[in-house]
Each structure stands twice: as structure tokens, then as C-alpha cells.
């Protein structure tokens, strides 16, 4: 695909433009945005799960009140999207999109159903491992991150060029959530933990500005 830049990136020492970024607040999040099992007339089909974690910067400090956006396929591996023609059923009760803010300590939690594996036409018999797309802003233009969360033990990891696009095995493994019995809700939903580290802001370089 002819979409990847060939020339090296030019290093940009942070200015005011990079250490600031869009600010979001409670008005940007609706009442059912954090529970994707309550966005339709009834409950979606599939395995109900809770995904929670903490958003930190690269110094280990929590990133409070930051916007997280999520989207995913339904339990059958189908996205509610015009360009998805995978012949698996749509679920009228599952839209597949959510958004939430971290709390003052950087914690987040949302409820959804576990997405199914998803076939795509990248190569013969190509299947994406089950995954949830994550979009985070963090506090600055420089901290913007879009990534994907995976589930432990997925047999498709070895065959997925998107997961394998990260050359470092330890880095890849950080995209795999961990099963967490401690936050599982009895007789309700299994729970996964997915902690997110955003890059940090460089020290403010313009102390003289007033």
C-alpha cells in the first residue's frame, strides 16, 4: 500500500503547540457511552465483559479526566459499518462504540461484549484476532495515541500482520489485556485489565512567556 512515508520524520522540539491539545469534559460523554451493552433496546448477544485499567504517562503519573474512545466488532465479528461486508449477523442491540473519561486517578472502566475474530482480505484466509480499538488524547497534541487491545491466548496472534507490525515482542505483549479475577463481577461478567501508558510531555520550554 502506498501510504507509508518514505522520508525520515523531522524532529520537532516541543513548542506550545505540541504541549497543549484539545480538552474534553463531562459534556462530551453521554450516559450510556461507557456501557456498550445498554445502547440498544435490549441486551446485545455475546459474552458480557468489563474492561478496566489506568492511564499513566511515561513517568508513572496518572492521566486524569482524559477522553478514551473505543470501537469494536460485535460478538460475531461484524462491525456496524457500511464498508464491512463480512457475512456475519449484525446485532440490533450492539452499536460497537463507546467513550469515557478517566477519573482523577487515571482509572477507567467500561462494559461491552467480547468481540469476535474478524476476517479481512489482506491475504488468503486472513483473520484479525479479537480486538478493541482505543483512541486517547492525553493532555497534549504530542500525547495522542490510537491503538488496539487484544485478549490473552488468542490463537491468531502469530498470523496477524497488524499485531506483528510491532517488531518488539515485549512491546506487542503490552497490547494484550490480562484476565483479572479480582474485578470480575460474580454471576455477571468476566473482567480484563488494560493499562495504558502515554508518552509524556517534554518539560515546558517557554517559562518566559507571559
Amino acid at each position: 500500500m502506498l501510504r507509508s512515508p518514505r522520508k525520515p520524520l523531522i524532529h520537532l522540539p516541543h513548542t506550545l503547540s505540541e504541549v497543549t491539545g484539545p480538552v474534553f469534559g463531562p459534556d462530551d460523554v453521554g450516559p450510556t457511552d461507557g456501557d456498550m451493552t445498554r445502547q440498544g433496546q435490549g441486551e446485545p448477544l455475546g459474552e458480557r465483559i468489563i474492561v478496566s485499567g489506568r492511564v499513566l504517562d511515561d513517568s508513572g503519573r496518572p492521566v486524569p479526566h482524559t477522553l478514551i474512545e473505543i470501537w469494536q466488532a460485535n460478538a460475531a465479528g461484524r462491525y456496524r459499518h457500511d464498508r464491512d461486508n463480512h457475512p456475519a449477523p449484525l446485532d440490533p442491540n450492539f452499536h460497537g462504540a463507546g467513550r469515557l473519561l478517566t477519573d482523577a486517578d487515571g482509572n477507567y472502566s467500561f462494559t461491552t461484549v467480547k468481540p469476535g475474530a474478524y476476517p479481512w482480505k489482506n491475504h488468503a484466509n486472513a483473520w484479525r484476532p479479537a480486538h478493541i480499538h482505543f483512541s486517547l488524547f492525553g493532555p497534549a497534541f504530542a500525547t495522542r495515541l490510537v491503538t488496539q487491545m487484544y485478549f490473552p491466548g488468542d490463537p491468531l496472534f502469530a498470523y496477524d500482520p497488524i499485531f506483528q507490525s510491532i517488531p518488539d515482542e515485549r512491546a506487542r505483549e503490552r497490547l494484550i489485556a490480562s484476565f483479572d479475577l479480582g474485578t470480575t463481577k460474580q454471576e455477571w461478567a468476566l473482567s480484563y485489565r488494560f493499562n495504558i501508558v502515554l508518552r509524556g510531555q517534554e518539560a515546558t520550554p517557554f517559562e518566559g512567556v507571559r
Partner: protein
Amino acid sequence: MTRNLENVPLPSQTVGPFFHLGCTDQHCVGSLLTDKTKGDRITLKICVLDGEGGAVPDAMIEIWQADAEGKYAHPDDPQSVAADPAFKGFGRMATNDHGCCTFETIRPGPVPANDGGKQAGHFNISVFARGILKRLATRAYFAGDPALNHDPVLVTVPVERQNTLLLQNSPAQAAEWYFEVYLCGEKETVFFDV
């Protein structure tokens, strides 16, 4: 034990073809304006092209900009001037079948530079698309702005590539500015490591 106790930033992954679902179906921002927004109204049309000059119809574009006075609507902007309360500075759209999207906004003012001077007014732009592993960050400046000669970021860009960071317009439509993002190829846009 949870993973990721080490404070290494998570790797980026592609936004994929279905980002509209979580990002732009319900939460696109094409107009950054209200009736009360201060500054010169402009239209900003951004088109994304691949290495063969073909339209990229499934890209997401985000812009981040200062207000007309060069102040960002962000708590870490230390300038004493108050930010325009009618301007948040953030826009986001998906490209259409022609690879383009259009924002209604204002011309951003000059922004403080690290050396105590000013940066020329500019947009900070993020490009996401299927086939791109990591957000591409670039800037768009106004062609003809006398402040370009002193912009501390633009001077770090090789002279022969600086024009990839310029918004163009026509004298007949002075408030309509146009920016082409070439992902690769001969006209490849300058992308920054931020």
C-alpha cells in the same frame, strides 16, 4: 499482577477502516465556530493523497490550533491573554470519496516560540488511516505570511520541502485555504516526530 507496570508508552496501531464508528459518525467537528468566535473566518480544505496521487477516502484528519490571538484553549498555555471562550481549537473529520474534508474555522494568530519570539500562525494536523501504523503529525502554514521567514520550526525543514507545509489559496477566494497531504512519493509532505 497486571501487565505494563514499566512506564513504556504503548505502541501505536492503525486506526483501521472502521474508525468512523467510534470517532467521526457521532463526534466529528467540521465547524470550530460559533457566532461569538473572534477572528477572521476561513475555510480549510484538506485532501489526503497516496504515493500515486490517488485520493485516500478513509483517512481521519484532526486539527489543533490557537485562537485569533495565538492563545490555545488549554490550561498549560501560560500567556496572560484569556483564550476566546467561543473557540476550542479542535476539529476532526473523515475524508470523503475524494480524499478531502473541509473545516470552518478562524485564522490562528502567531503563537509564542521557545526563544521568546513568535511562531507563524499554523495548524497542527494529525493524519490517521488504514495502512498507517502511527498517527502522522504535520503543520500547515499560510503561504505568503511574512512571519514564515522567522518561524523556528519551518527553518528546521529542508528548504526544498518547506512548500509541502504551506496552505494555498487563490486571490479570488481569499478566505478559502487548501492543503494537500501527500503520504509518500515525490511530493511527500513533511511529517514531524513529536
